[in-house]
């Protein structure tokens, strides 16, 4: 079966004051995959992440993305806030949710780009604005149901348990009907049970929302469990790309994580 490409990274390079944080990195993600980007601490994963999502502009290379209109575009030419409209959405390692808003409202922020009405329509509560809001609220409630958080929908994000926050951030990404969801260390701070639940949730999301998922992670359990294919990097350079088993057997990956034998 022919697989469509979703995201292709070509020769990505990012330099910070003379140090190459990402060095000529290339890998490819296919549609509907759950793909993992792994590496030990300091490998440059976060830099790659930020280069893809255009929080940094890479010094060289391309980030070719197959957007919602099925066109191949180079994300490097886009501004940070333009990315989500093309169908690529991210989460944050530090969970950037808004404490003063409810769970439902936080999800509605995820649909920001889908609204058409402006401040005057909203201020005067014209029909178009009211209808849009109702539509979006229904969508958000549906996602919260899927995440088993419906009862909490009107509670404020402030003070919620960590696991709930992680789910809410995931829910927020789903609001934009994304083609590709990129998760920034989603297993950070979770225990073993929670990580297994997360794996199940990711598979459910892939199925239910028909999207592709990229995990940038350094927790091996999650990655080995849920990813179809993995790219391993160290010191900004690619060590190998392939199925979890292939990566596990990869000598260079083992060296990077465990060190060489004397």
């Amino acid at each position: 079966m022919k697989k469509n490409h979703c995201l292709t990274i070509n020769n990505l390079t990012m330099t910070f004051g003379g140090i190459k944080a990402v060095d000529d990195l290339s890998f490819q993600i296919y549609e509907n995959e759950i793909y993992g980007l792994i590496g030990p601490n300091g490998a440059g994963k976060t830099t790659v992440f930020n280069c893809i999502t255009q929080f940094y502009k890479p010094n060289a290379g391309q980030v070719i993305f197959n957007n919602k209109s099925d066109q191949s575009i180079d994300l490097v030419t886009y501004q940070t806030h333009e990315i989500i409209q093309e169908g690529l959405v991210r989460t944050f390692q530090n969970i950037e949710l808004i404490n003063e808003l409810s769970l439902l409202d936080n999800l509605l922020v995820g649909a920001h780009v889908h609204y058409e009405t402006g401040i005057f329509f909203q201020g005067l509560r014209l029909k178009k604005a009211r209808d849009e809001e109702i539509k979006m609220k229904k969508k958000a409630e549906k996602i919260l149901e899927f995440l088993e958080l419906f009862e909490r929908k009107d509670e404020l994000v402030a003070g919620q348990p960590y696991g709930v926050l992680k789910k809410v951030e995931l829910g927020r990404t789903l609001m934009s009907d994304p083609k590709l969801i990129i998760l920034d260390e989603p297993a950070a701070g979770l225990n073993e049970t929670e990580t297994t639940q997360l794996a199940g949730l990711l598979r459910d999301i892939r199925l239910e929302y028909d999207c592709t998922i990229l995990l940038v992670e350094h927790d091996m359990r999650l990655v080995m469990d849920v990813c179809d294919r993995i790219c391993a990097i160290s010191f900004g350079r690619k060590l190998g790309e392939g199925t979890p088993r292939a990566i596990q057997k990869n000598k260079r990956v083992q060296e990077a994580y465990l060190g060489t034998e004397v």
Partner: protein
Amino acid sequence: MEHIKKIFNTKPYNYYIFFGILLSLAPTAQQLGLLNSSTIIVLGTVIFYSVVGVGLNVLLGYSGLISLGTAGFMGLGSYMAAYLTVDMNLPYFLSVIISVSIPLAVGLVIGLISLRIQGYYLAIATLGVSEILKQVFIEMDTLTGGFSGKSAFYPKIFGLLELNRQFTFIGMSIVLVLILIFSHNFINARTGRAFLTMRGSESAAKAMGINLLKYKLTAFGIATAYAALGGVLYIHFIRFAYPSGWSVTLSLQILAVIVIGGMRKMNGPVIGAFIVFGVPELILKQIPIISGIDGLAYIFTGVLIIVVILFYPDGVIDLLNPIKDYIEKYKENKNEEKSLLDNQ
């Protein structure tokens, strides 16, 4: 009681309309001799400072952007309205539109600057803008009357109906209620959420497709437009203005209005305006001994700002929390008793 509460909760702006109606009864109360005319004037100032406060609340409370130039923009609106209605004899509503639009344009320029500079730098930059405006007010005396001040009259609606103080007061109340409803609406919609996201996390905002340029401009635009509108209301009610009045001290008082009243609450500015501009005149000055203290109003405001920031960050309403908790407990007990009785 429950029934009344329901009306306010399902359509929250019934609350604003009710408040507006109550406010509009003040002039009648004066006619009946229940209030004196100075009270009406003080309440009038509370109204237009509330309008300015709502704007600053959108900027600082919801969007997290600081501006110390509020007084300058209020002054700009005042002087324009005075010049357009008195010197150029323009109809009232046209003058209002122009007097709000031009400061709005200046405010958008500030918004552009706010993209490059943040935090304390922005505060200081807006301070500089306010000083520049004050100099403009002093120097351009053909428009502003310079040090001798500028005067205007009660509004003349549609060139025919000339209002008096009472009707101007009612007109201002209507404007306040409309501003509250309009703002409440967009704050509880996509725009408000975008503001809060921008304030809480610029990274999250960018990732969710919120165009920071657009929303910073919008926030500054609203703040300056409301400040200018407040200035227009001011000049047609108080009917004279001096350049020295548009000082940084006034900008700070308006800031106090939203801090004390509660940021990120729609009714905060109204409560705050009453506390900062109403209480010193209406209550403190009536109390013997302390009423003679010069600078009492400033001490009162200053202490409140500090106390609120340190202990009641959600605004002075939290001072009522012990009372609220007591009422909640009382209701709970009553409900428990009732269900016990029902079960028997």
